[in-house]
């Protein structure tokens, strides 16, 4: 595009005033970090779908057992292994128990175990990792070496041993998770804190004489919060899986208290003849794990500063 520069009048060539300060103004309004995170999260349809499914399942698990006329342990030996019908929406199992109710009570159990089984070890890990990272030195070295040694054995083996001793059920399960699951979280948080400690703004704070508490809450917590929440979220499907696995091998949750893992286990023995008894809990497990994975991934992407536009 060739403009007719020769045609520009002479008076255009007058000086304009002093350089205005406006060029110092940032050219795009800066959004606060957390608002940006929310915005990106909401935009992520896949992650939001996951979240909606989770909330729906949680809601159902609370409401439905209250509305049902059957209890989860109520047996009816005259109507065993029934196919889904208008009376029993999901059918009945080999002892005549209503599967619809058992699935949703099982949902309560599996979700509770999954959620607490992820949050509690995470929190323990945050505290231990935080102490290790913040104070450094010998404390740090000892804790890290211990973790190095303990972590060589898969968590599941420790859990199996513990459950053999303390018995099965939701509470023992959560305890077992808490005792054996904090190491990963501790390592992550410790690494993060070590990195942040080096940052200059922390150094500046300390030089200015800020007390430990201030530094922890104003600097360390906000920067680690995101990562901790993500790992807690992604830890839920792992916990749900572990519960299912343990119930499957006979250790996790024993009848009559239902859990999805236990229902899956009971379902596999009659799978060839009555496939719905396995299919339904299996779908619930997979759907829930998938939803938490998708939401957790979305959360992690939303928190990643490199993707900020």
């Amino acid at each position, binding site marked *: 595009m060739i403009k007719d520069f020769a045609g520009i009048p002479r008076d255009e060539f007058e000086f304009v005033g002093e*350089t205005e300060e406006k060029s110092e103004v940032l050219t795009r309004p800066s959004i606060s970090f957390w608002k940006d995170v929310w915005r990106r999260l909401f935009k992520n349809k896949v992650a939001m779908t996951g979240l909606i499914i989770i909330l729906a399942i949680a809601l159902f698990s609370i409401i439905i057992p209250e509305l049902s006329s059957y209890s989860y342990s109520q047996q009816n030996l005259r109507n065993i292994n029934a196919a889904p019908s208008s009376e029993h929406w999901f059918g009945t199992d080999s002892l005549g128990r209503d599967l619809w109710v058992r699935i949703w009570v099982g949902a309560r159990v599996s979700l509770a175990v999954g959620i607490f089984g992820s949050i509690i070890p995470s929190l323990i890990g945050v505290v231990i990792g935080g102490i290790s990272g913040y104070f450094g030195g010998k404390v740090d070295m000892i804790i890290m070496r211990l973790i190095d040694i303990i972590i060589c054995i898969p968590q599941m083996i420790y859990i199996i041993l513990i459950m053999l001793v303390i018995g099965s059920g939701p509470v023992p399960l959560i305890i077992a998770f808490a005792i054996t699951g904090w190491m990963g979280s501790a390592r992550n948080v410790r690494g993060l804190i070590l990195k942040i400690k080096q940052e200059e703004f922390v150094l500046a704070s300390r030089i200015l004489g800020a007390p430990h508490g201030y530094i922890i809450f104003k600097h360390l917590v906000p920067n680690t919060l995101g990562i901790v929440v993500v790992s807690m979220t992604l830890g839920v499907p792992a916990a749900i899986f572990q519960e299912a696995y343990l119930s499957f091998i006979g250790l996790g949750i024993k009848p009559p208290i239902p859990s999805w893992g236990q229902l899956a286990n009971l379902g596999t023995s009659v799978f060839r003849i009555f496939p719905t008894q396995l299919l339904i809990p299996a779908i619930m497990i997979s759907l829930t794990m998938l939803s938490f994975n998708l939401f957790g991934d979305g959360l992690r992407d939303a928190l990643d500063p490199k993707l900020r536009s």
Partner: protein
Amino acid sequence: MTEKILEVKDLEFSFDTYAGEVHAIRGVSFHINRSESLAIVGESGCGKSVTVQSIMRLVPTPPGRLKGGKIFYFGKDITNYSDRQMEKLRGKEMSMIFQDPMTSLNPTMRIGRQISEGIKKHEKISPDEARKRSVNLLKEVGISDPERNIMRYPHMYSGGMRQRVMIAIALACNPKILFADEPTTSLDVTTQAQILEVMNHLKQEFEMAIVLITHNLGIVARFAERISVMYAGKIVETGKTDDIFYDPRHPYTWGLLNSVPAVGKKRTEKLPTIKGTPPDLFMPPKGCAFYDRCEYRMKVCKENDPPERMIGEGHYASCWLLDERAPGIKPYVVKRHAGESSGKGLM
């Protein structure tokens, strides 16, 4: 010898991002002659790296995109060369060294192999020949005990050493042009000088043109024969080194020259800077991109992008101040440092 070996005409390059199109290069033209050294100077983000990397097609294309312009190598139009054709040029005719030597070498491959890899691609030679040449190249860049060093891995070396290896790699096939993308920015001052020495020496020995990208005017004075000043995706002034240092015509160039700390200046004087920040390249301004920060701006500058005007032989600038209708201003006074030589660049 003023034979044009590379000519870039009206190059336009953009990045397609989530937030929109970033107009990184908005019409850049320059040329390089055989065996000469050209420096492209500008602040971070002005597009100098993207310019040379896009010539060698090293910018990932998504999200990058060549929007317009032409590139000629020895007169041949290479703008639309296929990947295969570009592979033949890279390493053999033109090569590049990058800013961060710590990450520019493959950590799991021996140094000797990283050098000979390039040679083997372009020439048919025996492994033994390749090895000998790698050893020689290491000698040329000043690495002692080359026989042992070709068997070593990059993590054993310091930044300066790694940059020398990079130079050896770049020179392996005697290219006609070496693009040096901020090669000394991440090195300390002493090492900087050493690396520039190496490059200087090799330029003479191999008769190679060097395009030096930098934001440091200080190293440019002694190294380059010609300088192009870049701002916000465009070249605002080009000329021989003497012209740029002693008769600069663009207000941005003045700003850059002023902000070079001068030896002998009083320490209590504040270091001058150019107020403001470069414009957002999502929506590049219609007129001159330097408008917001320019002390001498005029009404015409806001709406109209100044065309390139010739000032002397080989000396061009894009500024409305050069137009005959513009009011005269005090000529820019070059602030001389104590003890500065008045010769040209050393090549």
